[in-house]
């Protein structure tokens, strides 16, 4: 099993990226820039895969 602290570190970075992506999407929408919004939709799907692979596991491994 991999080092739990490293897994948590990855999970924290993923959470940060997710937050930044959401901010970017909001800003893009507010400015009416469709390409920002739609590219973030795709980006968010990939971030979700990171959550499924890393974040969910980190939570259980620490429990």
């Amino acid at each position, binding site marked *: *099993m*991999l080092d739990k602290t490293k*897994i948590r570190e990855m999970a924290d970075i993923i959470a940060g990226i997710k937050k930044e992506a959401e901010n970017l999407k909001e800003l893009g929408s507010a400015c009416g820039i469709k390409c920002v919004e739609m590219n973030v*939709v*795709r980006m*968010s*799907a*990939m971030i*979700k*895969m990171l959550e*499924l*692979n*890393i974040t*969910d*596991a980190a*939570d*259980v*491994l620490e*429990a």
Partner: protein
Amino acid sequence: MKRPDIYWNPILETMPLEKMRELQLVKFKRVLKWAYDRSKLYRRIYDAAGLTPEDVKTWDDVRKVPVIEKENYREAQFKEPWPYGDSLCVPVEEVTVYHQTSGTTGQPIVQPDTWQDWEWWAETWCQFLWAMGFRNTDRVFLPFGYNVFVAYWAGHYATEKLGSEVVSGALLNTEERILKMRELRATAFMATPTYVLGMADTCRKLGMDPRDLGIKKILCAGEPGASVPTTKKRMEDAWGCNVYDHIGATEMGAWGYECFYKPGGMHVNEGFFLAELLDLETGEPIEEPNKLGKIVLTAFDRLAQPCVRYDTKDVAMWSENECACGRTHRVFKGGIQGRIDHITKVKGVLFSPVTVEEAVRSMGQLGSEYELIVEKNGDVDKITLKYELAPGCEGKEREVEAELATLLRLKTNLNFIYESHPYGSLPRYQVKAKRFKDLRN
């Protein structure tokens, strides 16, 4: 632990079993709530059973969640929002891709996926492609007619995501596909077992030995053949490479796979799916090896049309062996053993058509194609096996049929009627083969 680079995600693939169970319970509760809150179909079923997501806290509670079937989807679909109806869990504007089942067992199920769902398809495929040894050095040929079936669409996107090079042979015919594979020096391809064998035949007709094409690995799907040892051997001998099986379905996702170490069955991708094995008569969970049960499957992370405790109709048994790959993902021994709707009584004897495939493909004098027909002769069941002699074996019907009779009597306890057909005359299939026909009803 093995070298970490054999895993796509070593965290989920080598997670200790008790931690995996914890994770699965968390994820099960999450998808159950999602389905209950968002899908009129699931809410109706759970309300009728007097169940809310909050009632599910333990594994015993999981067993109380109603099992759904294809028929539930059929009843809910082809209504507004068209065509997904009550099974849809997201605004229809968020659906980015449509697929449907082949309709082998009735009205096709339609399957919406969001962009996230589609990423999830690719992700789950990447996990097993990696386990089979696909890498960015591979050039993967897809001899597949891209259409409404999900089949190798997900394989295409996963291959890209993995970093391999993908070549689509969609509109080419079989000969053109083979020539393109040779021209580009493809290292791998994906097809149904029937088509893998058919391509090898076509190769020989073109005057080429399939082994000379340089294919290193083949991924199979759509039929159980790649888990039938004699069919796998035929394919591996024909192409001179490794053949791997995986299992999935439109409404569930791709949930089972054979790794590079070929554990004599298929791993379950347990980080993304829950595969419960239930006793065929009592419905009680089976945890011990070597006992047949039906698989009830949950896909944890699918949004648009979730799949929660879905009766796959597939029959399997757990393996007693751990795989040498070091993954903790459990293994279904020998892959899928059959389908409940194919396992039938013939002359009062339980019969699974896959046993005939095993026998036919174990005999070098026979071609790979066959057809199996059960019908009534008065009150008595009659079972006919249509076969083809391999090229060069013409005139050997008597000895072949005697050998077949001994083999099949041993495997099935049944007597068959045999019909020899010229090589190449029985139907060839590119997608799901329909070799078993029960004409009694």
